């Protein structure tokens, strides 16, 4: 195992008193001194900025780039165009497991920035080729109902980038790629900025009243928004269909990696389905806890935590297909049964 990689903003985080933790081969901020819950609520009520430089970037360009991505990924790039972003999956050829969930930034006609999860970058590059540019830039995710309003005071062009739009913009002489994407369920943008300007941009954004937030809040926010985390809701043995992400799969495309196996599952029917569970009380359910209906273990949680907005526990779990919303369940957390029920996701509606 190699030593941890560090963000170009590493010194800034330490200066702010962040608690640093290993994550996907990187050392990144878990939380700042105000703590995960305050950071979480800042994102729901106002605005936060995350350093997500650990996300991979693979630049794929040239005449064959579009076709390479079309053949590799499940979603249909022809539904969008240059200047747009698209969420997509890379499947295992043999069993249609989701090898990674990815955002593609279609930067220019024949230029794509493919953004895998940190630890999956090499695997994704193996499938699509391209050049890894992860270490050339930082990525700042500015999220929250007031994120764009605050960003507009310091980088108005970035604040004007719409949902799932991608623009190449100039910030004080530095070229940035800005996408209207995120992982919190809130409005906002993600800004790829060259390393040399990353610290200045971070300082500028925080000076506009945007609160720094770490991976702890990123996880509770994505969970409230019902968004999957690779390694939990997606990964080995888990298909797009089981995860309830069938909309990511473009069956109209004649070919994509893993199509045959996924088609077979579609025909046979999924054996399990990802669902939301709300539990009574503050005790957080966790990942890998059995879910019971009556005294029968029927499912397993993939993620769970305390919802800072709702004030009770929430979990995502694989359940038998067609389990009805409202079904009373219990989650077995280290021998204690947490009462709850199946609910629709997102747990927390978007602002």
């Amino acid at each position, binding site marked *: 195992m190699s030593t941890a990689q560090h963000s170009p903003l590493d010194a800034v985080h330490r200066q702010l008193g962040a608690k640093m933790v290993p994550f996907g081969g990187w050392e990144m901020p878990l939380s700042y001194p105000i*703590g*995960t819950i305050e950071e979480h609520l800042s994102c729901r009520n106002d605005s936060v900025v995350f350093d997500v430089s650990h996300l991979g970037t693979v630049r794929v360009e040239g005449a064959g780039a579009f076709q390479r991505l079309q053949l590799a990924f499940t979603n249909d790039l022809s539904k969008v165009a240059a200047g747009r972003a698209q969420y997509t999956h890379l499947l295992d050829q043999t069993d249609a497991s989701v090898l990674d969930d990815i955002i593609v930034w279609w930067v220019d006609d024949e230029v794509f920035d493919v953004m895998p999860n940190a630890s999956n970058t090499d695997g994704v590059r193996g499938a699509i080729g391209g050049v890894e540019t992860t270490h050339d830039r930082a990525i700042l995710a500015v999220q929250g109902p007031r994120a764009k309003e605050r960003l507009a005071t310091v980088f108005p062009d970035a604040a004007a980038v719409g949902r799932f739009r991608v623009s190449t913009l100039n910030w004080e002489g530095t070229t940035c790629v800005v996408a209207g994407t995120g992982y919190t369920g809130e409005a906002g943008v993600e800004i790829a900025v060259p390393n040399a300007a990353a610290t200045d941009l971070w300082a500028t954004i925080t000076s506009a009243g945007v609160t720094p937030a770490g991976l*702890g809040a990123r996880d509770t926010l994505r969970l409230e928004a019902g968004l999957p985390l690779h390694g939990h809701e997606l990964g080995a043995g888990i298909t797009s269909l089981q995860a309830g992400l069938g909309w990511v799969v473009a069956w109209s495309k004649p070919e994509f990696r893993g199509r045959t196996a996924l088609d077979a599952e579609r025909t046979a029917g999924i054996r399990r389905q990802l669902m939301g569970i709300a539990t009574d009380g*503050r*005790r*957080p359910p966790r990942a890998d806890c059995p879910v019971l209906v009556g005294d029968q273990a029927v499912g397993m949680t993939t993620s769970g*935590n*305390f919802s*800072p907005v709702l004030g009770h526990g929430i979990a995502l779990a694989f359940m038998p297909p067609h389990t009805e919303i409202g079904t009373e369940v219990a989650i077995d957390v*280290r021998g204690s049964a947490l009462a709850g029920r199946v609910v629709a996701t997102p747990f927390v509606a978007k602002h």
Partner: protein
Amino acid sequence: MTVPAHLLYSRDHEWVALEGTRARIGITDYAQEALGDVVYVQAPVVGTTVAAGDSFSEVESTKSVSDIYAPVSGTIVAVNEALGTGPDALNTDPYGKGWICEIEMSNPSDVEGLLDAVGYQALIDG
């Protein structure tokens, strides 16, 4: 990281405030800092007997769950009911409003195995 001089400490990062044979228990500033935001405390039940070293409570943060070990043997005689709705007191006031329970000691010499503030400070300074 505060380590009040008048308290005793376990190696598992609990503090003990003695009043005669009664010991009030909580987790240290160091422990709450390491745990992160506390969202739930599984309080012990009044009347339960505990032996020093037993896990008798759980503290859950957004990050993880930690066992709390009884620093002394005895009977639980009080629990901090306010933690039911305000477990964040463990973060904001670990030595005050964040107290977890009180134990009536069955073996007061248990305290001889605890650290004083200087000893605990040395432990966390590693």
